[in-house]
């Protein structure tokens, strides 16, 4: 993962970058499977490695597959990025170990969900019962986000072309440079 992340920054050919980001997602999905989070892994593989790559390729087909501006290193930005990264890594030092049963995340509402979920919803997959029932509002918000994304794409590039086509059909007016 680290190798593909570094290569992502290094490569100038955007086609290679898209392919690498797809493989990055796939590696992440494998990592989630190893961590027993099959639902997350499933989503990562389907969305991150699958659809996102296809959409990126679609975008490349519309634009070009070479990065335009020359690579240059902006030192202030690099320093800020490194500082942020170091702070985040420093923050993880305080976090409980992976799969520590005493971690706060396992003590708060999770036991309640695990205990009540199968009884109250009759659904064996706890992830689904939490996602759809206990956290129904969040999921509704997520669906709204997806809906808004599609509506935004439609409004931005679904419409503009139609207008352009309309104006193409019209006889060009004098003084109209477009």
């Amino acid at each position, binding site marked *: 993962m680290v190798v593909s992340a570094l290569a992502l920054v290094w490569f100038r050919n955007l086609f290679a970058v898209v392919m690498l980001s797809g493989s990055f997602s796939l590696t992440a999905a494998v990592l989630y499977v190893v961590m027993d989070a*099959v*639902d997350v*892994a*499933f*989503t990562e593989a*389907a*969305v991150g490695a*699958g*659809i996102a790559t*296809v*959409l990126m390729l*679609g*975008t490349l*087909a*519309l634009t070009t597959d070479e990065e335009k501006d020359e690579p240059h290193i902006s030192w202030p930005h690099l320093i800020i990025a490194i500082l942020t990264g170091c702070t985040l890594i420093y923050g993880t030092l305080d976090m409980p170990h992976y799969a520590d049963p005493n971690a706060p995340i396992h003590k708060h509402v999770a036991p309640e969900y695990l205990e009540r979920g199968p*009884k*109250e*919803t*009759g*659904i*064996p*997959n706890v*992830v*689904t*019962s939490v*996602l*759809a*029932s206990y956290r*129904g*509002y969040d*999921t*509704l918000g*997520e*669906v*709204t986000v*997806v*809906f808004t*994304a*599609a*509506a935004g*794409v*439609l409004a931005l*590039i*679904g*419409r503009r*072309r*139609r207008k352009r*086509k309309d104006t193409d059909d019209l006889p060009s007016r004098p003084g109209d440079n477009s």
Partner: protein
Amino acid sequence: MSEIPKKMDEVKRKEMQHKEVLRICAKLLIPLIMTFGLYVQFHGDFGPGGGFQAGVIFASAFILYALIFGIDVGMEVLKPGVRRFLLSAGLLLYAGVGVVGMLLGGRYLNYSVLADDPVVGQHLGILLIELGVGITVAAAMITIFYVFANQDGVE
């Protein structure tokens, strides 16, 4: 726009139509992908999966179809109006289940009141909202892909 890209598209499309192996493989795969999508959709209660993943898998079947047979043929299968209808129908189904729960005397998005038995109600509610999620996600992905791929034509 200029003529040359369009002509190149035509050539590409014709080339694509001669690729027998691709077309036959796609024809074999698409029903399987769709069946798997439905399985993930309705089996999400018992195993990994759910509306989001199922929607994406289902959309990938349409995207594969459009990639192999051309975007115009893909547009014929699922017209823009149908896509937009499905896009909003899924979200409305989700929100509607919440409203129905409210009308039946529960809180918004509380499914226990949907049936006499709270557990059955929860099951029904989760099934319906996952269906809504799946429909919206699939329609959104197909729409985004088609709009990107169909920049030469009229959406």
